[in-house]
């Protein structure tokens, strides 16, 4: 069930890319796609009726979900953050240079050069 949510979210992200004109919205859709992929990875690790993979007072013996996807997602999220931060700073520079974030106007400005 959760898989469908993840795929639809990827679809929404891609749709965002295809239709939006504003560059910042592209960045947003990129995050959507990243989160959707992360959701999908996590959902692959879930096992019905199993606990979070931490040995603690409440779960002393191993009755855990699959920990590996969660570890991978941890890394994937941080990569998403890194790309997002860089994208945002580049957008600031794009705005400084072209004065707009709209794709058409940038294309016309670039054509003039």
């Amino acid at each position, binding site marked *: 069930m959760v898989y469908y949510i993840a795929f639809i979210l990827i679809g929404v992200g891609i749709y965002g890319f295809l239709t939006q004109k504003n560059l910042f919205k592209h960045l947003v859709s990129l995050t959507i796609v990243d989160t959707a992929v992360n959701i999908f990875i996590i959902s692959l690790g879930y096992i019905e009726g199993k606990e979070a993979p931490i040995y603690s007072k409440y779960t002393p013996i191993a009755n855990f979900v699959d920990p590996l996807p969660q570890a991978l997602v941890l890394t994937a999220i941080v990569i998403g953050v890194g790309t997002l931060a860089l994208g945002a700073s580049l957008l600031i520079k794009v705005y*400084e240079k072209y004065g707009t974030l709209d794709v058409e106007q940038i294309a016309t400005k670039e054509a003039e050069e």
Partner: protein
Amino acid sequence: MSALLIIIPLLAGFLFIPFKEKAKYILPLVVITTLIILLLLSPDQTNAMGGWKAPFGIVLVLDSASYYSLLVVNIVFLLISLMPQIVEKGYSVVLLILLASTNGLVLTGDIFNSFVFLEITAVAAYIIAFSRKNPYGAFKYLILGGISGAFYLLGAIYAYIGTGSLNFADISVNIKEGFLPIVALLIFIGIGVESKIFPLAGWVPDVYDSGSPLTPVILGTGVTFTIMYLFGRIFITVFHGYFLDVVFIFGLLTIVLGELAALRQNKLIKALAFSSIAQAGLVLSTISLGGYEAIKFGYFHLLNDISAKLVLFIIAATIAHNFTENKIAGVSFSIASFSLIGFPLFAGFRSKLLILQLAFSKDNYLLPAVVLFATVIEAAYILKWNIKLWHSTNTGEEKQKISWNVNLILLIVALLIIFIGIFPDLYLKMAQNIADGLTNYRAYVTNVLGGM
């Protein structure tokens, strides 16, 4: 021990973050140390990171293929580090990180680890792409890289589900049969963007035209070689050449449309960017012909192309007008462009000849026709630039003089191209070893999994 190749540049990067400008001086030192370490290492050893054996932990594989690829990549980085003029202020740290990530990409034996290193290379490439007032190009590259990263990650996860572990050798041995098409498709998308395949590599011209000579040089040579090596590693060693017929068609498409697009560019850098797209397409389609010979000649051509591109990009980015003052740069530019087209005395001729002979021996008449057609077009626009630069009269703008060390390096590479043209076995031996490493995946699996 092979982890040192990644760690030392990384350590230098981390230490020099507070004083970025000073990093320019230690860059050559770091590259030399990694080269020395590489020469000390013996080519077939696998090091498990953190002591955890193969399918569980991450494994760095140093077989003959990765050994020689590392050699090439480090030599390229050495040449670039010896030219501080072309490196922007404060970008040496980025170069260090890039060196670490390219070494990582070559060495890693784990699919998720290769995703991480691919992302490091990509992020470093975004920064380099931005180098001199080219934010829009860099941003487009970032978006494209981000999405391709997402697909690559999906491919990795599907591989994990399919085989249970993330290790290349493990995947190649026991991936469930249904998963291979989907994994190959997703990974093809992930790497396709980086390895300049036709519809996916939209970022190349804008990024290479970023104004600073560093971007095209490092992205065009070092990173391209690493990506091509990764492509070979995954699609040949891991997927046993499963997806290559699709890649062949895309390769042909890239060659033809890359050359045609280059025909109309009026800026030298953009034309050369398209030429590197076309050459990448040629290498990919040669590799995807399948078989040991094909891979050997594919990488041989890649080596020739990289040495020619190194010279062409430096000159195109620094002095994009006439050669009257700096003759040495002019001569090396001409030699590199002749080698690219495939005139007899130069290296390019050898590799094109061997590729044609190979294609014919495999009864594939499409590839030679496309290659020859592309070479005709390539001859048209490269020679146009050659003449324009040699005979242009507009000596109006600033008389940019190339500094002596850049000239020296240009000349050395140009003479190397001629030397390879006459005695090709230096590059051929390298290509042979790379092809050996990639093709016998049984040795790879036993080497990594230790005959589990």
